[in-house]
């Protein structure tokens, strides 16, 4: 899970990394009060989980509390790259002398963690990495050993960072390990005109799998803006809304992604991604189907299940129970293969519903669902 900037800032502060004073709010009136507490002037920063915020007008300077209120009012509720601005953070302005970049990130290829650091921090860091790779230090970190003061000194020296950053580098590693993070990034890490080191902006990605030992993951709980995504999340389903007309439900992320591709290849557009996971029960299937059927954009639904540990008869029971409860108005094409497929098909056959069709192959099912979406 990606954190908002203000959540990352709070984590940094708790781990002793120096950050500017700041507060977060969803109200323009409160923004005025916060600016006053910060000494009058403030940087107003839209809280959205996307890059390129500065260039999109999501970071603006306010010279006094009245300007802070006005800026917050203008910013709240707007859209930055598809993300609605629900809150703004007001931070004390900082006199920046130098901008650095530091992060620890999971290196999937190496199966370990990597320190990345550069004396050329700021918004153009990706360009710097692409055009002048020698200006960006990449140093693998042995997770068992961690970032000792010797490691931190090596990172700082290689990247050309001042020695005062060593303490931040060590503390940032503690954030990564203690919080089960996959990414901790400070960009920019700045040296102020007064010589102070400050983490001005940060990005943290926490590992959802660590929920059982990280209470904080629950506190930071994702609020889904899309009501269908929220409904699916409540039922523990992996659902992503897309912009098409064929609802897709299947088992396993790979097979569902593949199903989306096959639907697209038939000239239709998938309306969603929905993975019921491995070993799904009838209830899970019924829940998933009712989420998709409640989407007004959906014209037809494709169920594609290859049962490994998932039993196709349970899937069929789930379909029957969903169809019974929602009063089906959209055609459903079902393809079942693998574990207990014959029993699953028999269950659907017995309760023959005029809007439920059976298909024998994945391609045939996708073709038929696309056809039905077009004629609907």
């Amino acid at each position: 899970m990606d954190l908002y900037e203000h959540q990352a800032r709070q984590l940094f502060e708790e781990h002793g990394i120096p950050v500017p004073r700041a507060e977060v709010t969803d109200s323009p009136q409160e923004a005025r009060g916060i600016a006053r507490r910060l000494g009058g002037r403030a940087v107003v920063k839209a809280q959205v989980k996307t890059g390129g915020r500065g260039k999109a007008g999501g970071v603006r300077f306010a010279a006094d509390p009245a300007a802070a209120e006005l800026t917050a009012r203008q910013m709240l509720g707007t859209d930055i790259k598809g993300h609605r601005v629900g809150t703004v953070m007001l931070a004390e302005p900082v006199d920046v002398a130098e901008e650095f970049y530091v992060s620890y990130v999971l290196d999937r290829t190496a199966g370990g963690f990597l320190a990345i650091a550069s004396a050329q921090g700021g918004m153009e860091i990706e360009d710097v990495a692409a055009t002048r790779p020698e200006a960006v230090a990449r140093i693998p970190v042995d997770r068992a050993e961690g970032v000792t003061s010797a490691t931190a000194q090596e990172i700082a020296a290689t990247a050309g960072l001042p020695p005062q950053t060593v303490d931040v580098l060590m503390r940032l590693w503690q954030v990564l390990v203690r919080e089960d993070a996959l990414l901790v990034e400070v960009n920019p890490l700045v040296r102020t005109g007064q010589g102070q080191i400050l983490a001005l902006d940060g990005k943290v990605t926490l590992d959802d799998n660590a929920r059982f030992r990280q209470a904080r993951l629950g506190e930071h709980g994702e609020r889904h803006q899309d009501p269908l995504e929220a409904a699916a999340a409540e039922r523990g389903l992996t659902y992503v809304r897309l912009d098409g007309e064929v609802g897709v439900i299947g088992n396993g992320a790979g097979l569902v992604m593949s199903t989306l591709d096959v639907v697209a290849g038939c000239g239709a557009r998938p309306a969603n991604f929905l993975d019921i996971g491995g070993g799904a029960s009838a209830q899970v299937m019924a829940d998933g189907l009712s989420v998709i059927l409640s989407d007004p954009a959906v014209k037809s639904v494709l169920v594609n299940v290859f049962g490994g540990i998932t039993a196709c008869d349970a899937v069929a029971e789930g379909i029957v129970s969903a169809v019974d409860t929602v009063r089906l108005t959209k055609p459903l094409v079902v393809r079942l293969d693998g574990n207990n497929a014959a029993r699953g098909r028999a269950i659907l056959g017995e309760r023959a519903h005029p809007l439920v069709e059976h298909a024998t192959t994945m391609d045939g099912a996708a073709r038929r669902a696309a056809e039905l979406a077009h004629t609907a």
Partner: protein
Amino acid sequence: MAIHLTKESKVLVQGMTGGQGMRHTRRMLAAGTNVVGGVNPRKAGQNVDFGGRGVPVFGSVADGIRSTGADVTVVFVPPPFAKDAVVEAADAGIPLAVVITEGIPVHDTVALTSYAARRGTRVIGPNCPGLITPGQSNAGIIPADITKPGPIGLVSKSGTLTYQLMYELRDIGFSTCVGIGGDPVVGTSHIDCLAAFQDDPDTELIVLIGEIGGDAEERAAAHIRDHVTKPVVGYIAGFTAPEGRTMGHAGAIVSGTAGTARAKQEALEAAEVRVGRTPSETAALVLRTLRAD
């Protein structure tokens, strides 16, 4: 021959006495797997009956190896305890640990894979369906009745896509199918399996299944170009999937690839791998390639 798993393999199951472990041990035995024992310190000395066949429970992996000569362990242990289970197996000197468990924190996976590697234990997974050598042995949860022995080696991140391709090609059959798992960090890569299939006399053709994210497929393509002489047919899922998370600036800096399905397809095709647009087209490419030989 096959790769990593044969009828000679002696298989321990860590977490055998749990719900998942019981169900899949039963299925592994039915598929002909030589399951020689389970591991559970609280149930050591017991015997679990699987339809007339008793399987002993050992107190530790080391005890299991001493008593049976086991050389494979299949791990069904829940996420909070999975790291310790693999560390124990590596300390006991097991050559292969197949980790089925889904939901292990990445920090634990990094720790367990590097620990196992230092002790010479190969880890397959985590969050994987395991591997099957049809007609010989099945270590994990891949359905054993889809297909039969044959000349195709298959390596995939995705479980259900593995089953789909096994099903499409069920009349040809497979040497070994390996589900390496879809987590960001896994113990065995596409490349490890490509190298093993290249050296396996039973494998004539390799099917490589990938999906969006990371750069494993791009790296596999480079390996194929330089080291694989057997024909490889590829399939990539996720052309219409929405763009995933970018991991800040760091993600792009680390991998240097967009990780899109298109980028992966192009990398594979540049290495002369034929890439199917759908599972069925991929199967058709496999048939055409085998007939042309």
